[in-house]
């Protein structure tokens, strides 16, 4: 078990085995997404209050969930990189940031499109759920900007890791914001068991599907990141130039 993880953290080994996982995750994720969306958009019964507008949930909840998941992955990897100085951990953190930013954007955009017919507004300044989610988008931007501003990779890793960890306090705030303050945003529905199975199942399938697609994208980006970080290493030179091309 430990040798497996130890081997996985070795850059050349990771680089070699990642494509198989990327392919499996991408194909499985797309199939689940297609199946879940079909059922959610066409087969699931209409919500008695929100009518067909509730169907936005099938893209909104998975993207919102993954926007927070990406931040957690980024912050935990950054912490592991800081404490144990594992090369791959900083690569994971750096790779998670742009994906997290895009999924945060999707959660905000689909939420806004959902809010227009349901709340009568695209956006409500001062709403705790909306504001803390927007803050997360800026945390991702800050993280990416900080990384690109520092040329020395080791320093960029350390400084951006600290930023990621400080910003992590925002994650429980986003999650509990609908309980702690009054918000336009509705409370928990998935975990609270408030949905009938024919509505809930497509959502769970989509959450799993999006998670797999996200996993494929993350592995893809980590792979590029590893290659860039190891660009002076012998195994990379041999791989790119072909063995024995270089002394």
């Amino acid at each position, binding site marked *: 078990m430990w040798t497996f993880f130890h081997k996985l953290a070795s850059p050349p080994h990771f680089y070699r085995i990642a494509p198989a996982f990327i392919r499996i995750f991408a194909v499985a994720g797309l199939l689940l997404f297609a199946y879940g969306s079909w059922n959610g958009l066409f087969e699931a019964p209409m919500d008695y209050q929100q009518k067909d507008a509730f169907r*936005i949930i099938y893209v909104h909840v998975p993207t919102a969930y993954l926007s927070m998941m990406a931040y957690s992955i980024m912050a935990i990897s950054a912490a592991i990189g800081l404490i144990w100085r594992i090369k791959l951990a900083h690569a994971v953190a750096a790779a998670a940031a742009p994906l997290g930013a895009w999924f945060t954007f*999707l959660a905000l955009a689909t939420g806004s*499109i959902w809010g227009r017919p349901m709340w009568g507004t695209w956006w409500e300044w001062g709403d705790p759920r909306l504001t803390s989610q927007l803050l997360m988008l800026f945390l991702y931007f800050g993280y990416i900007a900080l990384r690109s501003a520092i040329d020395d990779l080791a320093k960029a890793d350390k400084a951006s890791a600290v930023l990621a960890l400080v910003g992590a306090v925002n994650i429980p705030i986003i999650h509990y914001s609908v309980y702690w303050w009054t918000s336009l945003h509705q409370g928990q529905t998935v975990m609270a068991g408030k949905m009938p199975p024919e509505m809930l199942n497509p959502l769970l399938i989509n959450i799993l599907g999006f998670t797999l697609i996200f996993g494929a994208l993350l592995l893809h980006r980590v792979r590029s990141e590893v*290659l860039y970080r190891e660009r002076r290493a012998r195994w*990379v030179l041999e791989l790119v130039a072909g063995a024995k091309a*270089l002394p």
Partner: protein
Amino acid sequence: MSETLAMGGYGAYVWSSVGLTVIVVVMCAVLARRRHRSVLNDIRAQISAQVRAQIHAMETKE
């Protein structure tokens, strides 16, 4: 069919959400591929620069 797609008058909201999500996820995949290719190209450029430097060093020695 068109009735199903109309989503009881909410079609514009539902389909724009779904469409945007699909577009952004596809774009994420395209960007990830492009990033990988640019890293590979950088390394190739670095290798040819190294090789050139070595050839140059050998030629000046002769």
